[in-house]
């Protein structure tokens, strides 16, 4: 199956408008001022769906829908927002059944808005079930991702909605059945458009997963801290939504430009605590001063360099090409401000971007790291076209054989 870039863009736009519609319904009913931060389509391993929700308590509603599109969709609120939402709906507040019923009702109205846009665009109907109230921690709040034979990866549409002025978020997830989605996307592909073969996108994702594992292994070898590669996924979003993925927290990390097929930019980011912890694990001596010293920065720079190589080498080896990268530039700033010059750079040639994202973490000390790559879309397509699927596991080069 192939999907073209145009239909990915259109489907993303539908999800975004649906989320906007849902957010407006929320505002009308409760006066809550919320904005849709990010909407993206993500291709990832089905077991990793909802990983970003880990550790948080949620309540929400779940629907299944069928028609032109089959699957499940959920709207979830961080638990702390339930009080204020109920208060807005039921003056004087409510608890127990009444609170649940108000969440159900608001969910029902919001999600109708979300689904209707899809049906209208597709010129057909999509039926959905009555809302089912859900309450759970982390990814458990999501319905199990649909299974498809021989296909461990699934497409997820994901919108993050921010309650303005509060540090609370809502999320809408849509998990369509692979086959109906694939059919729809194929139907909406423009003949002769810029098609991407989905099976190869999955293979590329798997290659990246082994790249992330290599990067995590490198971190572990250098620092002695057992490090796990977590999620690897490839997402698709409008270019202006790319910086928002990283958010307003301050990050330390490295940026490189890579050249070859594909070319693009790659970021390795650590939150400030992680940066300090991991740098100190690398440093042979105690740091000279407080906070993030020059020694810390030198260590982060080299770590970024080695993680970057671990990440891209797998692509180069499978594609039998070389992917060069510039020396790492150290960055220490607001996350979104680090990403926006890169998104702008890529955005000069394309309206949407693929974002390849990975995460790693460790249980021993507070440490987590994210890798984000922004490839040139045309070159990624070319790389996928040239990708030989049966070489997908050839991510390691054999030094012994060459020297």
């Amino acid at each position, binding site marked *: 199956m192939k999907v073209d870039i145009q239909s990915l863009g259109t489907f993303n736009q539908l999800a975004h408008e649906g989320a906007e519609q849902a957010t407006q319904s929320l505002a009308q009913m409760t006066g809550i001022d919320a904005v849709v931060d990010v909407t993206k389509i993500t291709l990832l391993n089905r077991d990793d769906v909802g990983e970003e929700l880990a550790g948080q308590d949620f309540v929400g509603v779940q629907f299944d829908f069928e028609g032109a599109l089959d699957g499940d969709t959920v709207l979830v609120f961080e638990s702390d927002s339930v009080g204020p939402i109920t208060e807005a709906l039921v003056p004087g507040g409510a608890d127990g059944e009444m609170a649940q019923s108000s969440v159900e009702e608001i969910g029902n109205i919001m999600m109708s808005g979300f689904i209707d846009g899809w049906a209208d665009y597709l010129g057909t109907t999509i039926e959905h079930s009555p809302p089912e109230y859900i309450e759970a921690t982390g990814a458990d709040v999501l319905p199990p991702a649909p299974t498809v034979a021989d296909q461990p990866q699934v497409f997820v549409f994901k919108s993050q909605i921010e309650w303005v002025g509060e540090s609370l978020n809502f999320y809408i997830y849509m998990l369509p059945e692979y086959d109906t989605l694939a059919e729809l996307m194929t139907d909406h592909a423009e003949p002769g458009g810029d098609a991407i073969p989905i099976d190869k996108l999955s293979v590329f994702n798997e290659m990246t997963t082994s790249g992330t594992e*290599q990067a995590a292994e*490198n971190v572990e*070898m*250098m620092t002695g801290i057992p490090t796990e590669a977590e999620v690897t996924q490839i997402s698709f979003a409008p270019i202006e939504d790319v910086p928002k993925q990283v958010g307003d927290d301050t990050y330390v990390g490295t940026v490189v430009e890579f050249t070859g097929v594909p070319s693009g930019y790659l970021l390795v980011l650590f939150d400030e605590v992680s940066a300090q912890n991991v740098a100190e694990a*690398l440093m*042979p001596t105690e740091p000279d001063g407080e906070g993030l010293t020059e020694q810390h920065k*030198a*260590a982060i*720079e*080299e770590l970024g*360099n*080695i993680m*970057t*190589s*671990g990440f*891209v*080498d797998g692509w*180069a*080896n499978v594609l*039998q*090409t*070389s*992917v*060069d*990268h*510039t*020396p790492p530039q150290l960055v220490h700033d607001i996350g979104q401000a680090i990403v926006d010059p890169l998104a702008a750079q890529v955005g000069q040639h394309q309206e949407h971007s693929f974002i390849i994202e990975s995460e790693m973490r460790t249980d021993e000390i507070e440490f987590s790291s994210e890798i984000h790559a922004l490839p040139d879309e045309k070159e990624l397509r070319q790389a996928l076209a040239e990708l030989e699927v049966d070489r997908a596991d050839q991510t*390691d*080069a*054999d*030094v012994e054989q*060459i*020297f």
Partner: protein
Amino acid sequence: MPDVLIADDSEFMRNLLREILEEDHNIVGEVENGVEAVEVYKEQTPDLVMMDIVMPIRDGIEATDEIKTSNPDANVIMCTSVGQEEKMKEAVKAGADGYITKPFQKPSVMEAIEDVVPS
């Protein structure tokens, strides 16, 4: 003790290599890019160059190529985070004698050096 030149743009990595090497080697210089590596090589003609690949101004493969062209007997070990097969082939073409991928441990560095410059 053999003379060694270290070429790496990362101060952190130069320190690490120095610590590994200084016991049994005479470190004649530490440089941060390929241009300096060639210059210092020509001045000092050390027994061995530990050469990073990704460096500003001029990369390590080009520098290796020039060093090996001017002196085919020079010993250059690439010491890099890049683990791509095509890159390794480029390094071989430029005349590199060995290839160590970062992150490395002391024994693998010593082993690579022993292969290239037997003590």
